[in-house]
């Protein structure tokens, strides 16, 4: 707690000093600023600029990487799935080198396991049980608030920025009670189907810090950008698991507490951009994701969280439709990984920019 207070004091102490000493770019016309091509604009928004982003990611989880880094085809064992990820962000250029923002997301995914059949014989009857399993994750993500700072000089060809923020545990993180059902067969009295339906949510459950740094350099129409970031939990969390018992075709549930410490998550993105025209930029990004540390309690023992790795190649483009609207489109192709899903995905983001207060 003491560290958080020190952090807040440091922020309060430094922001006014910096805000008074900013450099205003030469260009002041808002339409020129709004239509600034990627290779000519800094890492942050301009002073007074407001950006609203809305994104949608559609991912096909047809394969995953196991603990040895081997690719596992999920379609062949019947557990392939898709997921839908929605994202919204609001950010504002407080000055030409300080940006404030907030973002959140919504995730919906369901993983079906292969159907199994079990023959059950009691002293009174022989029954055939068909077992279906659906593991669903659904819900809002946590609210992420952040500040981003860039070099306090005018952007010519090189820029460096840092970004710090926190994921506030606003979303529900505990698994909801399963909604299993039992369906009797209309044809045969000794047959029934058990539908297992597990309901997970999307929140971290604890505050999570985010610290990132980025650098960008441009040479004529070519630009390169690198972003490195870490997410680390503030503290250990507590959540629940559900025990279920099927008795005479009726489910009963009981929850059990467990503790956990989220892993640190590291992301590195390195992208190469080409500004084809003033309104069209194509790029290719290499994304490396890795987790380390953390643990989860299982049945009274604390186990290290498995280390995850995932490398994606993401070609994409940035299309300026109007001075206010820009479309970003990215396709993700998993290359290698470990202990991780490896979905192919399409990520579309619509960005709306404006200067709400006239410059």
């Amino acid at each position, binding site marked *: 707690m003491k*560290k958080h207070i*020190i*952090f807040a004091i*440091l*922020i309060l*102490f*430094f*922001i006014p*000093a*910096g805000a*008074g*000493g*900013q*450099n205003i770019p030469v260009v002041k016309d808002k339409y020129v600023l709004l239509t600034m091509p990627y290779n000519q604009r800094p890492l942050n928004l301009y002073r007074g600029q407001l950006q609203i982003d809305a994104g949608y990611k559609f991912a096909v989880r047809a394969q995953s990487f196991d*603990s040895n880094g081997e690719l596992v085809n999920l379609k062949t064992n019947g557990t392939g799935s898709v997921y839908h990820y929605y994202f919204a962000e609001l950010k504002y250029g407080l000055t030409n*080198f300080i940006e404030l923002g907030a973002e959140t997301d919504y995730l919906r995914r369901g993983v079906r396991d292969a159907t*199994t059949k*079990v*023959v*059950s*014989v*009691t*002293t*009174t009857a*022989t029954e055939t*049980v068909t*077992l279906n399993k659906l593991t669903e994750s659904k819900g809002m993500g946590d609210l992420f608030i952040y500040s981003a*700072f860039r*070099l*306090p*000089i005018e952007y010519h060809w090189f820029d460096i920025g*840092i970004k*710090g923020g926190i994921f506030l545990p606003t979303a529900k993180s505990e698994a909801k009670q399963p909604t299993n059902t039992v369906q009797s067969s209309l044809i045969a009295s000794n047959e029934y189907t*058990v539908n*297992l339906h597990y309901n997970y949510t999307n929140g971290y459950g604890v505050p999570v*810090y985010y*610290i990132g740094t980025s650098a960008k350099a441009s040479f004529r129409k070519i630009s390169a950008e690198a972003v490195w970031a*870490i997410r*680390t*939990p503030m*503290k*250990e969390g507590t959540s629940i698991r559900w*025990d*279920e*018992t099927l*008795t*005479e075709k009726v489910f009963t549930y009981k929850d*059990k507490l467990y503790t956990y*410490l989220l892993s640190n998550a590291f992301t590195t993105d390195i992208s190469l951009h080409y500004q084809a025209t003033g309104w069209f930029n194509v790029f290719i990004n290499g994304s490396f994701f890795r987790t380390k540390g953390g*643990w*989860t309690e*299982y*049945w*009274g*023992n*604390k*186990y*290290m*969280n*498995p280390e995850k790795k995932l490398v994606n190649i993401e070609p994409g483009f940035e299309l300026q439709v109007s001075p206010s609207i820009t479309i970003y489109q990215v396709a993700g192709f998993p290359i290698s990984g470990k202990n991780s899903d490896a979905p192919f995905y399409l990520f579309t983001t619509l960005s709306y920019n404006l200067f709400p207060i006239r410059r």
Partner: protein
Amino acid sequence: MRKTRIFQNFGCFAGILISLLALLSCERTNYDLLDPATAGKWTHYDTSNGLPGNTVSGIKLDSDGNLWMTFPDQGTAKYTNGAWVYYKTANSLILSNSINCLAESSSGAIIFGTTNGISILSAGNIWTSYIDATSTMTVTSIKVASDGAIWVGTSDQGFYVNRGSGFVKTYFDLYQNINTIEEDNYGNIWIGTNHGLIRWNGSSFTFMSTYNSAPLPNNKISCIRQDGSNRLWIGTRGGKSVAWVDAGGLHNLSLLNGRDSCIINDIFQDRRGNVWFATANDGLVCYNGIIPKSYRVNNGLPEDKVRTIGEDKDGNLWFGLENKGAVKYTLPIN
């Protein structure tokens, strides 16, 4: 003027960077963490790596965290701090090397049921024993009840109860072959015999078998276990299913896809809530509350004849085998 501003701005930039990096040093508690790669694994133990015998009759975790095993012909062994300590007639005052079962008393003493009475190992390595001078006391089961009473079942001489003033024998015709004794969550003592069940409710005995219309899978009750979900499990020798009793009455569960019969040697609930069944010929069956799943030789078990189940202080399951020692199973984490 411009240089001063740039200096201020750089100062701001550096200050924020330092304060953000300071957050990385969050306070964390250090724990001894387990490797997830060890979860879901089977580890085999036999005479080649420390067990005194390859037939295990009983497994019990004591209140000090020691894991005890008993053997029908090799005495008993205690697994503590990564090493086995053996107790046999040759190096201790135990009555016999032929031990069928064990339990821990309310005072922390370990009670061994032998083929010729019971031996008790108390603190300070003090041994005491009890034998019945009138008959051979082949102990098959021991239960220390919540009131501290020690219930001892025998193979053909009924059962003995010690409520603090010595063992008192109780014998019922037809119900004299005791296989198992258990206490339920209401304080009732259940005794499994070759002729059905006996229930002691604190004041009287009730006898239950298929002969008096009790819906048991079979009258040869081999084991009874109370689980953490308020279910009293009843395993039999030869029934098609295993039974459990709860507030809703008696239920049956088929373990082996409707096989004509199976012999349940032991029942145990793990920390995860799964109920495990040791069978005489069909390996292990794990019931997760919805469907049973079999574990046999092709799943990692050294053999399909399993006699007994126990748990160590870390929650690992230990299965005592008929001919091939014991196997430790670390629960999977998914």
